[in-house]
């Protein structure tokens, strides 16, 4: 055991020694590529530029406009417009970061090259991968890209968000909405339940004879007691949650009839929202930083890949131990990773970080709840700091919930300003 570990270590060390150029700052301008301009990547590019002026930072992002997922459930429920979710990259460009609007096609970790769809290739001393998630098309039988036009996922914000909203608006009063939620891990653990809440709010106020069913591949979920207490109070008889043990696991869908098949029954929906199984954005696999789970194992101090030296992975794509896949976590990891990359470029050792996550959810427009955590590396994993974190109090009065709803919106304004300028 000792020997294998030691040999593996030595092999790893030899590999990194062969691959890593000596202190990158020995070169005039070390090159860092950040791939993906979401909450993780955009934050990281900006922080790096500030932390290490000598670095040449390039942000590669395929879309000219980023559409944020947090608060997109409010868009679906008609409480907010999609424009409030959208951000450009001009402020980031103005800071001296090269923003390349292009799709990364492949990464060669040995030659340290990123190949772009436009045909050009960019070399790097360090690469930060922040591609978010991709849907595992086909993992749920019947659910492919064509099916998503009938049964939207709306788990990447944009056209899908608006499609689901239009379908709800087009549904007659008395209709049935079905949401299916996947097994862990997936982007935004409380997201399906916030969505269910806000759709229930829409139905209650606009189409009160309708019904909402949540089919779940799990027996428990984030902030469950708070959600369920609020549902009982705000949406009695309207919203039904079917757990895994009660037959909630969806095994197949039929887009033509908007039908969900579970082990126990079939559900025919007027509006069907499939939240499908996910994995790290495709480029992670192309860069050989994703493991057999589809996600990327990382070192919790530097966020450097455990599989490829010189590549760091942050945000939804990373396996970040106890930290959930959230915009808050992506932004927090990005700042820690930027400091670590800056230190490594100076040939210094990054110091052990502490990170916070907080996910706010709206159960109704003026009813917010939250879950918080503080994390630090323990035995190579980001682990909950014991005694910290937890959810909003169960017995809080309505003005407390209203205050948290206002803090949720303030959080969104704050984090998007930090990420996109």
């Amino acid at each position, binding site marked *: 055991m000792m020997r294998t570990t030691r040999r593996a270590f030595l092999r790893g060390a030899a590999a990194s020694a062969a691959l890593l150029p000596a202190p990158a700052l020995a070169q005039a301008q070390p090159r860092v590529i950040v791939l993906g301009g979401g909450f993780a990547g955009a934050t990281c590019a900006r922080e790096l530029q500030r*932390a290490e002026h000598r670095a040449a930072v390039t942000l590669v992002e395929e879309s000219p406009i980023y559409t944020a997922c947090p608060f997109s459930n409010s868009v679906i429920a008609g409480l907010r417009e999609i424009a409030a979710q959208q951000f450009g990259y001009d402020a980031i460009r103005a800071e001296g970061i090269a923003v390349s609007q292009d799709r990364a096609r492949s990464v060669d970790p040995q030659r340290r090259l990123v190949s772009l769809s436009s045909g050009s290739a960019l070399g790097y001393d360090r690469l930060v991968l922040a591609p978010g998630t991709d849907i595992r098309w086909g993992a749920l039988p019947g659910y492919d890209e064509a099916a998503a036009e009938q049964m939207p996922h709306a788990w990447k914000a944009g056209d899908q968000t608006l499609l689901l909203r239009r379908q709800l608006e087009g549904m007659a009063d008395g209709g049935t909405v079905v949401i299916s939620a996947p097994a862990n891990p997936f982007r935004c653990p409380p997201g399906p339940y916030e969505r269910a809440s806000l759709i229930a709010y829409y139905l209650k106020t606009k189409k009160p004879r309708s019904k909402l069913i949540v089919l779940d591949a799990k027996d428990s979920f984030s902030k469950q007691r708070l959600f369920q207490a609020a549902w009982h109070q705000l949406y009695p008889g309207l919203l039904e949650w079917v757990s895994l043990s009660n037959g909630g696991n969806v095994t197949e869908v039929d887009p033509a009839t908007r039908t969900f098949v579970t082990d126990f029954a079939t559900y025919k929906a007027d509006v069907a929202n499939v939240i499908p199984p996910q994995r790290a954005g495709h480029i992670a696999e192309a860069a050989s930083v994703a493991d057999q789970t589809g996600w990327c194992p990382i070192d919790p101090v530097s966020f450097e890949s455990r599989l490829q030296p010189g590549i760091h992975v942050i945000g939804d794509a990373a396996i970040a131990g106890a930290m959930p896949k959230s915009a808050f976590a992506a932004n927090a990891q990005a700042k820690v990773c930027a400091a670590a990359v800056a230190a490594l470029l100076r040939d210094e050792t990054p110091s052990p970080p502490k990170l916070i996550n907080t996910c706010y959810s709206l159960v109704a427009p003026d009813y917010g709840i939250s879950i918080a955590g503080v994390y630090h590396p323990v035995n190579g994993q980001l682990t909950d700091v014991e005694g910290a*974190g937890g959810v909003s109090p169960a017995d809080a009065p309505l003005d407390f919930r209203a205050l948290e709803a206002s803090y949720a919106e*303030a959080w969104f304004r*704050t984090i998007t300003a930090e990420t996109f300028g």
Partner: protein
Amino acid sequence: MSGSARLLEKWARAPRAVTLLLSLVLPVMAPAEPPAGASSCSGCHAVSARVETPIPRILGRQPTDIVAAMQAFRSGERPSTVMGRIAKGFSDDEIRVIAIWLAAQPAEAR
């Protein structure tokens, strides 16, 4: 820990000295890199002056005030929606170092 961080920590233990020396020494001494935990605060506490927010600003304030607030949140003496849950994740030493770093950041940066 770097020498400057150790120095800062020592000062942090002596609040009066900190207040006196802060303006003189911190611009040079405060490390560019935030101490453990500090970079997560700006997820909620806005750095940009342009952001409209009911969440109080915490940059460029007296470190002793930040330390007192964090300790009161942690003990529950000061009620909060979320800060109690967050402050419980930090030791006195960590809070002091974070408070000094926050104090050294320009209040209306970026």
